[in-house]
């Protein structure tokens, strides 16, 4: 994967679209987990959610920068 991509004639780091896509995925996942009652079994939901997001975001980042 290239480090920069061009969207609508604007050059930007690939991280940016990845971030947006990850955010959407995270929102969907969050909805599913809260309706499924996952957060009732988690000690610190906020921290858990942030950690999930960091995982989701860093996997494609690692793929790019490997």
């Amino acid at each position, binding site marked *: 994967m290239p480090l920069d991509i061009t969207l609508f004639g604007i050059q930007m780091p690939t991280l940016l679209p990845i971030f947006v896509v990850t955010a959407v995925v995270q929102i969907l996942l*969050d*909805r599913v*987990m*809260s*309706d499924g*009652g996952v*957060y*009732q079994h988690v000690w*610190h*939901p*906020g*921290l858990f*959610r*942030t950690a999930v997001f960091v995982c989701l975001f860093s996997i494609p980042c690692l793929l790019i920068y490997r």
Partner: protein
Amino acid sequence: MRASNVLSASFKLLPWQRALAEWRTVDAPVLIYMAKATIAALLALWVAMTLNMADPRTAIFTVFIVMQPQSGLVFSKSYYRVLGTIAGVGMSLLLMGTFAQDPVWFIAFFALWIGLSTAAGLKYRNFQFYGFVLAGYTLCIVALPVIETPLEVFDIAVSRFSEVVIGIMCATLVSDIIFPRRLSDSLITSEQERFRNILSTLSDPESVFEAFDESNPALNRFSSGVVGLNAVRINSSFESGADRKERQHYQHLNHEYMNLSTTFHSLKSAVSAIKKRERTEVLNALIHLYAPVASVLKTLPDTLLTPGDMNRVIGELFELKNTTQARLESEHERLKESASVEGEDEFTSAAYLIVRLLIELHSHCVTYLSLLRHRLSGDASRELSRGVRFSTHTDNVLVALAALRGSGVLLITMMFWIWTAWPYATVTITMAVVIGLLLGTMPNPLDGVKDFFKGAVIALVIAAVYDFYLIPQYTSDLLTLSLLLSPVLAYVGWMTTRPKLAIFSFGFVFMFMTQCALDPYYKIDPTKYLESSLAALIGIVFGGLAYLLVNFWSCSLTQQRVAKSLRRQIVSLCSGALNVERSALESTGRDLVQQFSTQGRLNMRSSRLVFEWLLTTLEIGRSILAIRRSLKRIYPHYYHSSIDTSLDAIKGYFEAPSQSGRERVLTTLGDTINGLHSAVMPKEKGQMQRIKMLIVELDLIRTVLLNSETFPLNREDSCRSI
């Protein structure tokens, strides 16, 4: 409330333990919040400086804008701030790309955009309002600085947007991770408080059967509190803790509460009508009918309700619900024997209201129990199939006025800029627009502008100390800068927890952040500092003048507008579509009145009057819907055309209220009721029930109309008194 519970529990403790408990519940949250705000702001500063952003101040400013003690508020505010910033950035790119060469069109579209965002900000509630404010404000901070060099607009747009996103991410991250405070917790406490209020009001027969007392706080408490709680619920939906089921429960509780308070009010007005005519037997029969309900509610303990208590009460209420019809009949019989026949209709309608109150109370309790169970163990006892929407209504005149004010102040400051040709006048424009956008929804914007001005002046002094002494003298790197800044940041954090200082602290933050030298490389110029401060203060004055001048809103005008829109609601119910839900009816009316009472400068007396009008409208509207629905199900040979005549009379009366119209409606209603009484009752049980329902509903409308002396005739000028 939770704090008071902890406090009352702590009376058994030792003195130092009590002090500790008090400190933990009262002072510690403030300290934690101050620490959170400071950490988030410094984090934003660090990220923005590390990424070499052009203006790290925007990031810190954003942190303070979205920072709130509760996480849900931060999320929803951030969400709308991002949306608003995207809209504003897009608009400024569009405007600069299209009209950079043409001042007239540029200013015209600028004014249009500001007007639109002011109007939309008033039209939408809660933090949605904030998104529109930002859409207008962003246009100012992106387009105006580069107006001489339009080619730079893309760079500045991207960097402003990135700074805003950095600020938002830092604020949400910190508030969700470090000691998060859930909005849903405060939601359940206020729901508990409201529920207890209902029970304590209803458990006291005096509060039901005594006359309206203007100073009675219990009654006012019972009638307010719908709209506010709905706002909290909307914001809490941004927290993941509150899942779909819980949201549905809150929607239903809110809806049932609205119904309960309407029924309660109608019952009270029916009772006061009976009292006025001194029908003691009827009154006694009603009190007798109500007594068991009160005695059941009295058995509930004053402390926190457990599911066990609730279960018992619900069982008893259910029992009552089943036996009430029989008791109603027997009371009716006794009344017939002892008293004259005239009181009969009054008794039926009031008794019907008591039965309705009981049914609604029962279902409210069931939903509440279900919510308690859901929170405690995750299994709701009641399946709620659908959500209840909270519909809103905004008056168009209010919105148009705000739009006019927003565009007007922009045009005036633009003229100021063009005539003086002062380079710093762009700051004036930005400031005036911010004032116009932000304080527009406040009950008293002029006081807000004064507070903002005071905050701005104090911030200027402190910013000067930082710019010319502290920062050049003591900072060498990011760490020392952070250490130096943290007292001010913590102070701002403290101010935002004080509701009285809200606008003051906003002015403070705004001015401090525009004037403090937080650039990536230290650069400060005393002339620039003085000139831009002066320009900003002039902008605040312009904004304040706009509130002073564009203000045709007065108490009696507000009353007229409210009465008109309420009347229109009844007229449309008389002939419009039948698929209006009662929840929509209730919530639009309440939202409307709520908005008018913050915007419309009503005094105590007239806002109480307006609330009475609202409840009258709701009751009449509900009755009309019920009548029209049951008319559809009645067999043609039982159909009485007189019912149509009375509906028409009601419609005509509310279209053009007059004294003669009022008398005509009352006589038509009376004739119709008498006609229905004397007509042959159908043999089938269902049809008979329906005809009886019709009589009761018609009678209810008559009672409400008889009792409402000020609506819709608006005889009394309550604005002039006081």
